[in-house]
């Protein structure tokens, strides 16, 4: 073929590549070629222009195969200033493909581009315009490039002497500059530019006109203001198209430039409805002709082009608030589309119907097509199913809700997984919005929960429980329905949680079903439930047990479960179990304190909020589920996480020897924490003694001041102004006899030492860690000659750890020491060391309250590797963790010189393994270790930790600490710890 220039070298190369049997062969061939090209380019001047061009083509081909050809970028850019068209063309095209607008090379070629733009050579101008449209207003060229070139481009567009081929490129190039410039830049001022646009719209060349209307679309999509005068022009263009006054070249399958028609109809949608009645009549008349007069042709391309215009016309009719007649005609047409077999038309019919469904006047007309819309839910094409779902959701109203929701529930059973979560949520929202009666609502929600399984979010079952408990006449019905579902064999977590709540509170309304049977049904599912669901079930068991005080067998069975969990690792479950055992054994106390949930406060729909959230593109996160104490007191928290047990009075329960001094109130906190996985610990417990007031004083206000986004830990260093300074001394004069932080730091690198000391009391620590667990002995010593009274020692639970604290006697004899064991196991990585709260009073009235950091730090769960790690292995891993948050560094400045030996000793004491000789620089130190934790009920897991400490060579007053681990928490906490320790070394 003569017109295809044969570049033999290129053709041969492509043939070679095609002949390659596999990827390896291909790579070898490509590498060989790249080597050759690199050598040629490196050799300098003696390379012909033809060859240069050929090599750039080859590079492009190689680039398309997915290989890196970075070195060729410059060669390609070098061709742009060439004087010959052939080279320039290759240069521009290669740069457009290889570079993107952030590339540094652009800076080098801006001048050549501008020269081409203002040259008198049309072909060069075209090349430059095409290129500018590709990469314009790059950050490299900056605004100056955009505004500099914009002037040249505008001149080309408005100069009547310039030929069509250049002007249409200039128009679109300008559009690109406009789009990239951002809303604040005013490349085109409406007052001056709109006048020019009036003239430009007179353009008779259909290609240029299309480009100009496209540019106008770009302008009005930002703001139509100043351009209203163009409306008659646009309508006139449309009118001309409809009368087929176009050159034959510009018809497409017999249709006058469908592209131009679509663009004009789209531009018109951005303007407000014109106040010129004559113009509006003409326009509506055109639309009517398009919508009602388009016939279905045999040729698919003709059909497509026609329908593209029809859909745009319907959208414009909507925007113009056309009469009901026209809109009803549109609905009729779209309804026809939905029922045809042609998938594209069906898809677009559904999509466009969604917009019409928002117009109340035609709602009835749409409902007439409900059957074919529902049928589209079962289409083989997921794109179509998705649109049908959208449409059903939009068109649902009070009258057809029952039917539509029924269909959606049916569909749920067969829906794709990718659609399910959305489907469940939307169905729930519809049910909530349009339910004809409450029983029906409960039925729908329970069916949803049952069928959707893991796709039902927490909000769905929460709002079900909410509706049931807020309406007294639903109590029995709800209990009955849940009972039925359990009998049918439902096992999904959401349903079991719902059942736990509903049966616990209203199980007694079921006639002829003994609580023991309900217990049996729940207990069958109990073993497979996650901890937070188990917590709910334990509460339900307690209540069931109290419902049937005479049933000794039930009591025994419940006690058996509770006693098993009284020794369970999970702090929340353990606490529940222990407390509930107390309550089961003392029904009289329980009767006073265990009551049903109070009704929820009136509030917005949880589900709707969630849906909005999804529409916003982000998943709901912990932000939404604020910790309990962050929320206002009107029960907002309870709505999120319905609490099983409501205690009538803050009266202490004498029979609940809670392991860490909690009363039942923080069940709420505990459960919420568990339910949200990584939630912060329960609020500070209210101790069972007069100190309660004091605690209330101290802890009440502090959490309120906390930033909601911060780690909601009431003891966190940032949140609690007292934590660092060693607790609060409200009115007492017992002060620590030293620096608490210093003691703590020392204990981070040793196993024995002092944790706290004041004039009366000394607390010592001896610890031993192995893998994810640690045994700590706390020594409480009374130094005074008097009794220390009301000694309290509490480790507030945190989700990252499981604690077991031995019992602490209430008073300590003079000059005596006691030991309290504390077992800890690390459940997940953590940022903050856990806390220990102690308080005591002296007979003289002096008091001491302290919140201390426990020396349970990330390094305690670290073990050094056995033997030396090979350098390449270390550095490969080091490099894979590219940067924050897995790899973070911090610079330390000290006042004293830092010796490498001291740092090395510290690292060793901390339990990290220094790797001497690994780092090429003798002033640097690297270390490795593995951090170990064990999620509850799972095998221990390890996280490889890498540490590098660079000591500044000359003055030795600065050091850089870098930590890299795959776990962001480990990285952050280890880095922070090292910085603290080395700074104070």
């Amino acid at each position: 073929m003569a017109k295809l220039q044969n570049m033999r070298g290129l053709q041969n190369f492509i043939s070679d590549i095609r002949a390659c049997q596999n990827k390896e062969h291909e790579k070898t061939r490509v590498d060989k070629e790249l080597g050759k090209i690199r050598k040629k380019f490196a050799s300098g001047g003696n390379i012909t222009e033809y060859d240069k061009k050929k090599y750039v083509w080859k590079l492009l081909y190689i680039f398309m195969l997915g290989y890196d050809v970075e070195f060729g970028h410059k060669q390609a850019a070098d061709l742009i200033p060439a004087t010959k068209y052939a080279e320039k063309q290759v240069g521009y095209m290669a740069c457009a493909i290889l570079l993107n607008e952030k590339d540094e090379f652009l800076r080098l070629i801006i001048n050549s581009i501008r020269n081409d733009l203002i040259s008198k050579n049309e072909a060069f101008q075209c090349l430059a315009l095409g290129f500018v449209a590709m990469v314009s207003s790059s950050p490299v060229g900056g605004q100056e490039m955009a505004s500099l070139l914009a002037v040249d481009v505008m001149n080309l567009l408005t100069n009547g002497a310039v030929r069509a081929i250049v002007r249409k490129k200039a128009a679109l190039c300008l559009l690109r500059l406009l789009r990239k410039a951002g809303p604040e830049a005013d490349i085109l001022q409406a007052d001056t530019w709109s006048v020019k646009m009036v003239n430009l719209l007179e353009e008779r060349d259909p290609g240029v006109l299309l480009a100009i209307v496209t540019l106008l679309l770009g302008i009005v999509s930002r703001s139509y203001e100043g351009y209203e005068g163009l409306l008659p022009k646009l309508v006139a263009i449309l009118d001309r198209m409809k009368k087929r006054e176009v050159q034959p070249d510009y018809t497409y399958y017999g249709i006058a430039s469908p592209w131009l028609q679509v663009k004009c109809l789209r531009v018109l949608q951005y303007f407000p409805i014109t106040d010129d009645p004559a113009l509006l009549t003409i326009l509506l008349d055109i639309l009517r002709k398009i919508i009602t007069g388009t016939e279905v042709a045999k040729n698919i391309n003709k059909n497509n082009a026609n329908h593209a215009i029809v859909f745009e016309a319907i959208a414009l009719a909507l925007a113009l608030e056309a009469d009901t007649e026209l809109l009803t005609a549109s609905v009729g047409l779209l309804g026809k589309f939905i029922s045809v077999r042609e998938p594209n038309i069906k898809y677009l019919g559904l999509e466009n119907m969604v917009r019409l469904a928002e117009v109340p006047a035609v709602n009835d007309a749409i409902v007439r097509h409900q059957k074919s819309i529902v049928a589209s839910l079962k289409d083989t094409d997921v794109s179509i199913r998705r649109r049908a779902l959208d449409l059903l959701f939009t068109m649902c109203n009070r009258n057809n809700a029952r039917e539509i929701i029924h269909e959606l529930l049916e569909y749920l059973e067969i829906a794709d997984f990718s659609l399910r979560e959305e489907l469940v949520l939307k169905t729930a929202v519809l049910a909530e919005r349009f339910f004809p009666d409450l029983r029906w609502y409960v039925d729908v929600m329970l069916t949803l929960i049952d069928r959707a399984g893991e796709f039902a979010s927490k909000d769905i079952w929460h709002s079900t429980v909410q509706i049931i408990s807020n309406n007294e006449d639903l109590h029995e019905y709800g209990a009955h329905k849940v009972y039925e579902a359990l009998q049918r064999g439902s096992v999904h977590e959401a349903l079991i949680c719902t059942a736990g709540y509903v049966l616990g509170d209203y199980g007694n309304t079921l006639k002829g079903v003994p609580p023991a049977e309900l217990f049996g049904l729940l207990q069958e599912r109990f073993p497979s439930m996650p901890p937070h669901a188990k917590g709910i079930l334990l509460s339900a068991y307690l209540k069931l047990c109290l419902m049937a005080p005479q049933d000794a067998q039930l009591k025994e069975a419940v006690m058996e479960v509770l006693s098993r969990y009284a020794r369970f690792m999970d702090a929340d479950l353990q606490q529940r179990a222990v407390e509930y055992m107390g309550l089961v054994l003392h029904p009289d106390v329980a009767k006073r304190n265990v009551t049903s949930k109070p009704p929820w406060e009136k509030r917005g729909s949880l589900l709707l909020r969630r849906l909005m959230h999804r529409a916003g593109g982000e998943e709901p996160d912990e932000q939404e589920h604020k910790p309990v104490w962050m929320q206002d007191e009107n029960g907002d928290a309870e709505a999120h996480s319905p609490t099983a047990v409501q205690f009538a009075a803050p009266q202490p329960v004498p029979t609940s020897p809670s392991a860490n001094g909690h009363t039942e109130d923080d069940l709420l906190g505990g459960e919420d924490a568990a339910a949200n996985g990584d939630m912060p610990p329960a609020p500070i417990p209210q101790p069972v003694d007069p100190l309660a007031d004091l605690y209330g004083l101290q802890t009440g206000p502090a959490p309120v001041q906390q930033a909601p986004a911060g780690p909601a830990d009431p003891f966190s260093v940032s949140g609690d102004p007292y934590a660092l300074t060693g607790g609060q001394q409200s009115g007492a004069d017992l002060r620590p006899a030293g620096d608490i932080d210093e003691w703590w730091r020392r204990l981070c690198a040793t196993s024995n030492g002092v944790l706290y000391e004041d004039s009366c009391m000394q607390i010592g620590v001896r610890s031993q860690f192995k893998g994810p667990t640690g045994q700590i002995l706390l020594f409480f010593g009374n130094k005074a000659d008097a009794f220390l009274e009301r000694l309290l020692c509490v480790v507030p639970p945190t989700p990252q750890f499981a604690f077991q604290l031995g019992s602490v006697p209430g008073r300590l004899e003079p000059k005596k020491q006691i030991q309290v064991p504390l077992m800890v196991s690390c459940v997940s990585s953590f940022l903050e060391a856990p806390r220990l709260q102690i308080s005591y009073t002296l007979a003289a009235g002096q008091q001491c309250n302290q919140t201390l950091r426990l020396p349970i730090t990330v390094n305690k769960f670290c073990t050094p590797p056995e033997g030396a790690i090979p350098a390449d292995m270390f550095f490969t891993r080091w490099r894979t963790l590219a940067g924050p948050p897995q790899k973070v560094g911090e610079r330390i400045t000290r006042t004293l010189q830092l010796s490498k030996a001291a740092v090395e000793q510290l690292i060793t004491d901390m339990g990290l393994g220094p790797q001497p000789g690994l780092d090429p620089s003798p002033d640097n130190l690297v270390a490795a270790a593995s951090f170990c934790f064990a999620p509850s009920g799972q095998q221990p897991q390890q996280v490889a930790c890498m540490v590098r400490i660079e000591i500044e060579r000359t003055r030795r007053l600065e050091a850089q600490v870098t930590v890299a681990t795959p776990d962001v928490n480990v990285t952050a906490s280890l880095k922070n710890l090292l910085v603290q320790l080395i700074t104070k070394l």
Partner: protein
Amino acid sequence: MIRFVLLLSRQGKVRLAKWYSTFTQKERAKVIRDVTPLVLGRPLKLCNFLDWKDNKVVYKRYASLYFVMGIDESDNELITLEIIHHYVEILDRYFGNVCELDLIFNFHKAYFMLDEMLIAGELQEPSKKAITRVIEAQDTMVENAKNNTTPTPQQRS
């Protein structure tokens, strides 16, 4: 606007890729990686549109090649489909019964024609004849350069 144009073979090989909004090299690779299986995996006789992230993908298969365009969610899908067809007709007109091999060995031609049809992600020339004319003029200019005659581009008067 059109965000990207891809030509994919049935085996998923990229025959042409053109980007009209800013994508880094990494993002480009990801788009190709994500979109290719979506498009190739769809059975025939389904509709030619796909939701993909916040964009829409419009594609059509011609013989062994898939022509794929990524557009904005609010864009007109059918007219995009016809832009694809328009491009295929232009290729066909130039190569004469175009096949995949033509596009492999003359990939640069496919780019040139695309550049004459689309600019800044918008259709610039609705006339097949006009585009063919421009491409042929380019060929002549290149041919002249090869024969070492002085370039004779049309000079503006």
